[in-house]
């Protein structure tokens, strides 16, 4: 992978000027590369990973992992059904997986009721959906490689040889 992308994946706030120093390229070249990634959809979005337990005033959405078994359709396989499902705004992520079910969804809602309502009135009744299993998330320990705990203070001495 391109080093510029690798740096941004780790910290999207890294200024182009600093990236330029890190990869020993001119700032203009770095800016151009980033612009290209943004335009061709390689970079989809920049956003913060937030620990909801610490974010005051943020009404953390209820999240659920939903396993969905579907009947694939002739010619288009799973894609057409998947599209019908992931087009709902309640669905924040949608993956086709191997194993005992087919789609894994992450669904977000204001409350348990909203998510339950989505499952019972929209998802389950769909023609090709055979079965769903809903797991409500209780606690985030780690996401996107980041651990949701107050970072421990460094235990190193401030100065040493």
């Amino acid at each position, binding site marked *: 992978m391109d080093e510029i992308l690798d740096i941004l994946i780790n910290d999207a706030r890294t200024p182009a000027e600093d990236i330029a120093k*890190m990869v020993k390229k001119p700032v203009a070249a770095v800016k151009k590369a980033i612009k290209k990634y943004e335009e061709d959809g390689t970079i989809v979005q920049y956003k913060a990973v937030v620990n909801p337990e610490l974010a005051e005033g943020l009404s953390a959405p209820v999240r659920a992992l939903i396993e969905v078994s579907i009947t694939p359709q002739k010619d288009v396989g799973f894609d057409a059904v998947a599209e019908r499902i992931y087009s709902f705004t309640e669905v924040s992520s949608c993956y086709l997986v191997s194993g005992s079910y087919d789609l894994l969804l992450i669904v977000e809602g204001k409350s348990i009721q909203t998510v339950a309502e989505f499952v019972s009135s929209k998802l389950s009744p769909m023609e090709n959906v055979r079965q769903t299993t809903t797991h409500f998330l209780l606690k985030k320990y780690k996401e996107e490689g980041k651990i949701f705990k107050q970072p421990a203070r460094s235990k190193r001495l401030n100065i040493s040889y």
Partner: protein
Amino acid sequence: MYVAKLVNDLPPSGIRAFFDLVMGMKDVVSLGVGEPDFVTPWHIREKAIYSLEQGYTSYTSNKGMPELRKDICASLKHRYGLDYHWDNELLITVGGSEALDLACRALLEPGEKVIIHEPCFVAYAPLVKLAGGVPVPLITTEEDGFKVTPEKLEKCWQKGTKAFLLNYPCNPTGTSYTRSELLALAKVAKKRDMIVLSDEIYDELTYDFDHTPFATLPDMKERVIYLNGFSKSYAMTGWRLGWAAGNEKILAAMTKIHQYQVMCASITSQMAGREAVNHGRPDVLAMKKEYNRRRNFIVASLNELGLDCHMPQGAFYAFPSIKSLKMSSIDFAKDLLEQQKVALVPGGAFGSQCGDHVRISYASSYDNLREAVSRIGVYLKARHGKKR
């Protein structure tokens, strides 16, 4: 006088007071740390915890656990094509420093000389002295990229010189050597019949070319005491685990001292060490990638600020010159600490001729480095303003 003269005469670290100043201050952005900012990778820590649960709490063989020695030898063979016999050419020590101490004590007759480059790690000359030897400084300069050249090595040689010590990549300069540069030094070692104490503790952190162990050079294996350890490669400084490899007779002598001195390295550390050697490669590569970016960032930033800084080839230190500020490195370090709460190590700590450099450790997060660069910038601007 209750203290032995030899010890009493060792110079106290001239910058102890400065270190105390740093330790006593809060909210310091520190670029003064000589160890990785990564915590030991979890799978290595987990292995150590598991070994404790399983009751591995005993002594090990003096030389270290046979399995660990075999693992290290296999890794040296795999990475560098080096053949050391696990049972009589390798010794597990309590950190790289013990390995060097043993080597000096096993080798040196009273008054024998050891050539040591400056700037260098603070412990070298004292360890040589404690072993009864006489350190002979070889001054490297910025113009040479702080490299030991064959000419300088030849010039420093005098009758009674037993060994020369080479640390590469080097703390504090980050200097390292290509194979052809090392070959030129090896020639002098052979001509003058010197043992080479090769401290390659930072070998895994070499950025611009492949690291060449001194022992891989033609005819050098028997002449080299190869010193290394787990501290820097695997972020395991606190485990105190190192090793020495070399000629069977010298290693046997070192083992003799080691067994009376410490018996063996901690078994918990050795268990962790096995996990590191066998499964730690991806961690090493990930850390190296990160250090390399920080290196490029900090060196470019320092030069931008007007502090001339050569590009270090390895380790995690930059060694910029502060000549343009017309003040001593200790005054600069104190001033910067007081004004901007940025800590770094004055160059004088690493050699008598290094007073116009400072050591900046980039084993610190990118956010910290950025903050430090910005504070140094503010400091320099204020200082230039004052002068006008």
